[in-house]
């Protein structure tokens, strides 16, 4: 019948197991969905789990390792088994969703996972039969040899067999949001305790954020119908309290919102599921929203999680937590079975049995491993006529795809097993306080010997735990504790006053009991599969094996057995595992200790963590003001940090090589224009500006007259080149400093550092002006005639405005700082105009450039032209280990200066020794061969490997103007090797090169003064 989409029978009221008059959902509001291709009807407000159980479906998955049939265990986020794949379309698909959390919506598509070919027949089930070979730690032992087989054979097969869900293959089309929020009091959890604390805090006027992972507030009141608050049924009181809170301006109430991470200084991450429950979500709405909350005080009211009983074959579909059965009944109106067995070590399961019994469900027996259950629940059970077997244990179950019977035995032995027919079995071994968030806050938990629980001990942050997560189970005590906590938290955040909240509460029964570890029949002598961690298929005996194998630390036991390492992070299993380890080690539970709780509390999607940071918003893309003008000219762009820079300007029919060759020729023959806006610019202003630059640069600036500029290099204190650039003196007290594009921010930081902390006495200030100016470089013999008619107020003749001049005037009618400078070796100008004027001035210059057959050129041509002249690029030809002398820049170091940053560092013995790597030129013996940047250089290509490497190529290009390839390289003792032949061994050949000086074009340097 594969592929047939049949509607399940008896789907009226959302499933055959929906009990009339029970639950809080509205029968008329149905939602149809498919599970493994079959259509089911649920009710709006159902989880996938409740809807499936309503339709009689308990089998929802196969276990991770043994592929055993598995059912729904819980009704909350602790669910280990019921992981499903939820799909809206191929792009909007999420694996590993907990069916107990995901709400149904009309039209949803759900699939089970980890089964092949189908859920009811799964070939991986063979692992169950081979189980003796799959003991704990088997991965570590079995697949060690042969080594190569791990990657090629074992790992892919194990991954395929043991996989969780399948990742979607298309890009997620949902939107995700993220925001920062601040509050005085953050309350995690909106059960009785959290709601009460929020009410108390909000009453003082404090800003309160209250979050809860469920769709509606109430917490344990979802299942516990025995609680009355202020004379009202607890759940109804909770909803009314939520309405009151939601109406307050100072309260943000977030449902479907999980506090998943607790970080330093009350920084808490919340994941809000905004549209996962909506049939046809508004596509502009985010699917999920990350809240990064900074709270002055935090109230932790995260409740407690019920533990299952550990006994043989306790994992069959239909075996679940007692509280879960109670939730399905009381909240969803769903019966988990018609004949429900109960196995417990704690009174709370009795209340589940009572509720089921009153709803007409048969309870064949309550099996209690204790001799003395709480007297109140015992009396009530007897009054209701339910058989209670105290001092008994369930020692096995039957049923392949659904539990069908339980074997019951006296714990004291003697009697033979009695088999009781059931179609569901609910269990409870007690409640584990949810100390996850407290522990994440770095608080230290303390073991309470009397109740055998870990409870919040020493606090590390400004937070407080209340209610069940604090070990408080009595309702009146919880209310009092919560009011105190809410008021104190608000007070500590600076809010006081308001009438004290006065709430009275009662509960049906006070609970007693609880156990941790393996129950009777699953002890060290019993060779049975008694699961503690359903998701990772860890049994009680695996923990014992780990101890026998020598694991004595709980952290090692955890990793060896993988107990608690699944996506549920051991919410059900950790305490059981710990108890068994402690027993096996013969130590107390507190001595063995808990493993570390880590964020996230429950799984969080990547989308939530990424938020808005995708596509255009992943990282800023910076464009110069002339970008669009360059785009209109057909420029190809390259990324330089966050900047987009015009790389080259191909004309029709040209490839990059042809375009770059043309641009290189054109600049030297006529003129080229280039967008240099991205170079860093720092305005250095103040009477001590020159004195400051003297300390920051190796050069001397006292002698630089206003109207002149100079190339400067700056070092780090260790003596290595840090950055370079041209500095223009605009006035006695004002310099226009330029830096490399990539160095702009760090040079500013470096200069501020020295100014603020080493030279604070200097009267000088720094202002970043990078983006104030659009910069158009005009380079080439015709550069002057291009700008001449556009410039006003500056005499740009060679005599009045020689190389390395700067002046203020106007160009195209707007203010300009005009530099006469060159990074090409040609006559050059750099036109700075306020950035908004950039495009207009660019286009005006472009018209004149094209009229003389000049062209625009990009960064590639810029790189080649500067290399032809041996001008270095800091960060390409230097790497943070080159001194000025290594780069042949000693001329730029002021010999008479008493101080500058790096003056001592550059004299360190290692920096002045012979044989240092120095920057030189390389000419390939074959002029047509272009070296690869980064290629290594050796003296003798025939020496044995590993060869002695002398250095590497830093820049290499085809130079159209030289008619041959050129390269710069760092070579050990390079300056003494001029004329020597060295070799560059490549994968397929060895290239012979000759060491040369660094100037390949116009060695006399006359063109720049043209």
């Amino acid at each position, binding site marked *: 019948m594969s592929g047939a989409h049949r509607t399940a029978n008896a789907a009226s009221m959302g499933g055959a197991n929906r009990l009339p008059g029970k639950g809080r959902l509205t029968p008329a509001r149905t939602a149809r969905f498919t599970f493994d291709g079959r259509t089911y009807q649920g009710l709006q407000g159902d989880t996938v789990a409740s809807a499936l159980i309503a339709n009689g479906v308990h089998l929802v998955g196969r276990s991770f390792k043994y592929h055993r049939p598995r059912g729904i265990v819980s009704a909350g986020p602790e669910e280990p088994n019921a992981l499903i794949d939820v799909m809206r379309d191929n792009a909007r698909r999420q694996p590993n969703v907990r069916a107990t959390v995901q709400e149904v919506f009309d039209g949803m598509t759900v699939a089970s996972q980890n089964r092949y070919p189908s859920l009811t027949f799964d070939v991986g089930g063979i692992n169950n039969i081979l189980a003796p070979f799959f003991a704990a730690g088997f991965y570590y032992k079995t697949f060690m040899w042969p080594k190569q087989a791990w990657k090629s054979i074992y790992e892919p097969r194990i991954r395929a067999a043991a996989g969780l869900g399948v990742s979607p293959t298309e890009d997620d089309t949902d939107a995700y949001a993220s925001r920062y929020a601040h509050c005085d009091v953050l309350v995690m959890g909106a059960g009785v305790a959290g709601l009460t604390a929020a009410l108390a805090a909000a009453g003082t006027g404090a800003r309160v954020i209250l979050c809860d992972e469920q769709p509606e507030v109430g917490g344990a009141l979802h299942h516990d119908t025995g609680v009355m608050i202020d004379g009202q049924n607890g759940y109804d009181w909770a909803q009314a309290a939520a309405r009151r809170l939601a109406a307050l301006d100072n309260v943000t109430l977030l449902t479907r919102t999980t506090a998943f991470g607790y970080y330093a200084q009350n920084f808490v991450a919340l994941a809000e599921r905004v549209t996962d429950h909506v049939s046809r979500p508004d596509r502009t709405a985010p699917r999920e929203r990350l809240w990064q909350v900074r709270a002055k005080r935090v109230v932790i009211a995260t409740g407690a999680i019920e533990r299952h009983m550990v006994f043989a074959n306790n994992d069959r579909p239909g075996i679940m937590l007692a509280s879960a059965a109670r939730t399905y009944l009381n909240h969803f109106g769903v019966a988990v079975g018609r004949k429900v067995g109960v196995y417990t070590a704690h009174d709370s399961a009795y209340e589940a049995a009572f509720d089921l019994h009153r709803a007409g469900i048969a309870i064949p027996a309550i099996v209690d491993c204790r001799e003395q259950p709480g007297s109140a629940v015992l009396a009530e059970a007897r009054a209701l006529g339910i058989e209670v077997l105290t001092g008994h244990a369930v020692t096995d179950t039957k049923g392949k795809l659904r539990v069908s019977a339980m074997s019951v035995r006296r714990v004291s032995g003697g009697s033979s097993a009695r088999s009781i027919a059931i179609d569901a079995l609910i269990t409870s071994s007690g409640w584990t306080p949810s100390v996850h968030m407290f522990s994440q806050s770095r608080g230290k938990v303390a073991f309470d010997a009397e109740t055998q629980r870990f409870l919040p001990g020493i606090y590390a942050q400004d937070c407080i735990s209340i209610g069940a997560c604090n070990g408080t189970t009595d309702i009146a005590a919880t209310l009092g504790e919560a009011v105190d906590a809410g008021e104190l938290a608000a007070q500590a955040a600076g809010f006081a006053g308001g009438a004290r909240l006065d709430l009275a509460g009662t509960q049906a029964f006070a609970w007693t009991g609880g156990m941790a570890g393996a129950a009777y029949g699953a002890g060290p002598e019993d060779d049975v599969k008694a699961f503690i961690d359903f998701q990772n298929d860890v049994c009680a005996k695996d923990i014992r094996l780990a101890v026998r194998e020598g694991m004595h630390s709980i952290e090692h036991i955890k990793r060896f057995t993988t107990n608690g390492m699944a996506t549920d992070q051991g919410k059900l299993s950790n305490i059981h595992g710990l108890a068994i380890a402690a027993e096996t080690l013969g130590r107390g539970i507190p001595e063995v200790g808990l493993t570390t709780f880590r964020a996230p509390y429950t799984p969080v999607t990547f989308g939530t963590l990424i938020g808005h940071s995708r596509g255009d918003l992943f990282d800023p893309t910076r464009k110069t003001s002339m970008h669009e003008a360059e785009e209109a000219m057909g420029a190809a762009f390259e990324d330089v940090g966050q900047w987009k820079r015009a790389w080259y300007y191909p004309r029709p029919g040209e490839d990059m090589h042809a375009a770059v060759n043309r641009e290189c020729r054109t600049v030297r023959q006529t003129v080229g224009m280039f967008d240099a806006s991205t170079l860093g610019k720092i305005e250095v202003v103040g009477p001590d500006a020159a004195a400051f630059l003297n300390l920051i640069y190796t050069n001397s600036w006292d002698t630089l007259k206003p109207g002149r500029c100079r190339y400067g290099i700056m070092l780090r204190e260790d003596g290595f080149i840090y950055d370079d650039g041209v500095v223009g003196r605009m006035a006695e007290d004002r310099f226009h400093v330029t830096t490399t594009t990539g160095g702009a921010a760090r040079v500013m930081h470096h200069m501020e550092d020295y100014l603020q902390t080493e030279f604070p006495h200097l009267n000088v200030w720094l202002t970043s002006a990078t983006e104030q100016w659009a910069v158009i470089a005009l380079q080439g013999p015709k550069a002057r005639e291009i700008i001449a008619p556009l410039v006003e107020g500056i005499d740009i003749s060679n005599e009045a405005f020689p190389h390395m001049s700067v002046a203020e005037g106007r160009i195209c009618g707007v203010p300009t700082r005009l530099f006469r400078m060159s990074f090409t070796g040609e006559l050059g100008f750099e036109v700075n105009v306020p950035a*908004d004027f950039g495009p207009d001035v660019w286009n005006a210059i472009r018209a004149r450039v094209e009229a003389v057959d000049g062209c625009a050129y990009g960064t590639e041509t810029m790189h080649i032209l500067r290399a032809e002249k041996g001008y270095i690029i800091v960060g390409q030809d230097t790497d943070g280990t080159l001194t000025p002398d290594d780069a042949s820049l000693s001329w730029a170091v002021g010999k008479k200066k008493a101080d500058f940053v790096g003056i001592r560092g550059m004299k360190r013995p290692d920096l002045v020794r012979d044989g240092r790597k120095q920057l030189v030129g390389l000419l390939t013996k074959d002029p047509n061969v272009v070296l690869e940047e980064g290629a290594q250089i050796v003296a003798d290509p025939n020496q044995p490997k590993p060869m002695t490497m002398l250095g590497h190529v830093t820049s290499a290009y085809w130079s159209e103007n030289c008619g041959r390839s050129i390269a710069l390289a760092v070579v050990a003792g390079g300056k003494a090797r001029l004329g020597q032949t060295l070799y560059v061994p490549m994968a397929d050949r060895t290239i012979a090169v000759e060491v040369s000086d660094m100037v390949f074009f116009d060695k006399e340097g006359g063109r720049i003064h043209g």
Partner: protein
Amino acid sequence: MADLATRTLPLRGFHGSSATVRLTPAPPASRLSLRARPEAVEALSTALGLSLPTRPKTSATNAARHALWLGPDEWLVIDALDTDLLGMAAAAGVLHSATDISHRNTAILVDGPGAAAAINVGCPQDLSLKAFPVGGCSRTVFGKAEIVLLRTGETAFRVECWRSFAPYVSGLLAAGAVDASH
């Protein structure tokens, strides 16, 4: 002689409003990065026609002119009119540094009941009126960009950023504006 060059604004044509947030590129303004020691503040205040604020996170306003405290010796002066702020500061005749940054920065006006939430998409500061009152200002971060934030009204902010960051900042604000309406 070429025609007089005209301005091309970084955020021309930008739209990004939502049901609860209106985003508007601010018109061009005159801007000054002003640096001075405490002893020069009075004279500069007189010269600029407003009291340069000396408390952190505060600003001063006189008609179309704002002075924002950015640091203990640093102010951002913004004038909606085409004003020679550099000349005005120079006329004070006291030691200071003034740099024209009119074109370095651009601004987006964020206005509406969801304004603070939209900005909190990328800004980690507490934007409640108590912590960040009207007239409050701060240099801070917005996602992966640096901004200067000025609160001009209970539900109105001016977001200043460097021009090349404007597409990113406006884009993230637009995403925030949409999110703030859900």
